[in-house]
């Protein structure tokens, strides 16, 4: 600073960064390379991985993880954390299914009510985090347990079993199913519509994050809540909206699931919260907030889906699945980290 001489574009203190370095600045670059590696790997060692039917299965798996993980990524960039997102997918399915099958409510209305439920829980999470200033890890861990208990308790109370099925015959199922659970054909193979939802959610999230004022606030409240508050950013409101967004994304997946599979089990969704977080982290989000990308999280989910199904295609013993998952997570994060370190050096 002070008496910088020269034009705006040159500064003698900067050694010229290489092209590679320039590429490495984006948070999602590590994930992208990881995705390529996984893709090539399974393409080479299995024969079905790149057939249209094969692609359909791993895109399918990626999509339902991806929809929530993109929202989780926004939340993580905003400096918070949601452990209840996985269980929420089951809760919303259960609400929809019980309303439609036990009370005979129209499916559309049931979906709407479960959306309201999800948003309310999300808002509660956010409100409690902001109100008590407790870490969101703890608060949403509480919600995680509470929702599990409610899911199981209410389901057995209402149905006497641990699953709710029969929504396929409820009024409004056909039209709602068309929107959330149909398939479309491409290259003679049918792809589930959830893939479209995934792309739409990712595009929307990326746009909001980078192009809008609210996106700027997300980065700010995650990077330094105190500084943001000091310049007048509504920190509490922004974070609550992020928690609600995450719950909303979980609702979307819950709705897709219940309409597609027409049945839901009370213990579903447990453990998915980690997959969302993993996808977001692989996609370049900092666990400490303030840095990350929505597209990265979507790519993280893609890696996840490819590995998940690729292992099956490769006929590996499924007992070891979690080991592969753990190693993959560590490897992806390490690669990513290497890139970020590089990016941070270049960035300045």
């Amino acid at each position, binding site marked *: 600073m002070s008496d910088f001489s020269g034009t705006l574009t040159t500064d003698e203190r900067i050694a010229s960064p290489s092209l590679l370095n320039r590429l490495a600045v984006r948070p999602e670059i590590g994930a992208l390379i990881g995705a390529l590696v996984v893709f090539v790997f399974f393409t080479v060692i299995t024969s079905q991985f790149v057939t249209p039917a094969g692609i359909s299965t791993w895109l399918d798996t990626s999509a339902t993880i991806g929809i929530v993980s993109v929202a989780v990524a926004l939340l993580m960039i905003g400096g918070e954390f949601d452990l209840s997102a996985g269980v929420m997918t089951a809760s919303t399915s259960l609400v929809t299914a019980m309303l439609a099958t036990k009370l005979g409510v129209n499916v559309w209305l049931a979906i709407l009510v479960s959306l309201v439920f999800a948003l309310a829980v999300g808002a509660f999470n956010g409100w409690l985090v902001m109100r008590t200033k407790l870490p969101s890890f703890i608060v949403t861990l509480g919600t995680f347990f509470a929702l599990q208990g409610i899911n199981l308790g209410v389901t057995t109370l209402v149905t006497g079993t*641990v699953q709710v099925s029969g929504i396929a015959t409820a009024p409004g199922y056909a039209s709602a199913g068309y929107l959330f659970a149909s398939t479309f054909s491409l290259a003679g193979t049918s792809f589930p519509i959830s893939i479209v939802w995934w792309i739409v959610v990712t595009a929307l999230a990326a746009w909001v994050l980078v192009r809008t004022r609210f996106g700027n606030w997300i980065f700010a409240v995650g990077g330094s809540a105190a500084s943001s508050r000091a310049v007048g950013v509504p920190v509490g409101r922004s974070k609550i909206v992020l928690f609600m967004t995450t719950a909303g994304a979980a609702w979307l997946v819950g709705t897709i699931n219940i309409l597609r599979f027409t049945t839901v*089990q009370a213990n579903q969704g447990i453990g998915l919260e980690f997959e969302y977080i993993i996808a977001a982290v692989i996609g370049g989000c900092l666990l400490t907030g303030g840095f990350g990308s929505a597209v990265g999280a979507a790519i993280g989910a893609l890696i996840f889906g490819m590995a998940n199904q690729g292992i099956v295609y490769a006929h590996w013993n499924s007992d070891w699945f979690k080991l592969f998952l753990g190693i993959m997570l560590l490897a992806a994060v390490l690669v990513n980290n290497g890139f970020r370190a590089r990016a941070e050096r270049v960035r300045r």
Partner: protein
Amino acid sequence: ACSGPASSSSSGGSAANGSATSGGPINVAVVTHGSAGDSFWNVVKNGATDAGKQLGVNVTYNSDGDPGAQSKLIDNAVAQHVDGLVVSMANPDALKTSIQAAVKAGIPVITINSGQSQSAAFGALAHVGQDEGIAGQQAGAKLKSAGKTNLLCVIHEAGNVGLSQRCDGAKQGFGKTTNLQVDINNPTDVEAKIKGALQTDSSIDAVLTLNPQIALSAVNAAKEANSKATVATFDLNSDVVSAIKSGQIAFAVDQQQYEQGYLPIVMLKLYHDNANTVGGGQPVLTGPGFVDKSNVDKVAQYAARGTR
């Protein structure tokens, strides 16, 4: 379309000519709803892989307790164009589309364990197994006939459909039944909770557990709570076998789930090589089986190697 039971006798002998298609070994995918590391499903897996080894069939086993994820595993198998598919249907509705897609793609499907009533409607060749509910019912009835009046049914994995069906069945077969949720991940908690339940309600005179490890905890718990409750369980391991021998456990329900893994492979192999079907449209039942003092010596060695 191809669900009609073919008119064929199940002669287990020589495969005459048949339509022995391509030369190489056939591929069969087994997709179940067991959670990873579940002791019951591990025996099913062992049955399927043993059959595969003996018959020269490539068997891959995958499982996921989440119905959606399970259906995706079926889609995956279809995309691989496997020569046969074995599916357990704890959530028949959720798997309907995927199974029908498999049938449409010309893959012979055999359902196992649960989902007996929907099996034929979905186009499966046959069903092998015993409904979890029926197994529970029989266990309950057996305890009732032993003169017991108050049953504690211990569920070790919250929200698991198979387990809850067993306890529901037990209630039907027995009468006064309370369910208790414990966490199999924490053995201390299991024992303490069962102990607590026995202490609070001293009229409980029978405990039904759904996993051999839980059974042993129940035995200890009963001892420490000074309860005279009889313990019965689903499934075996070597410790349960010795407990049955010593009379600490009354009996173990044995669904012979090894057959639920083994038989479908045999059936698919026969269907593939010789277009044979089994059961004539009726389910092939692997139960009822009870292991008690009378027959425990016979099955002891098999339990130890994971096939009973």
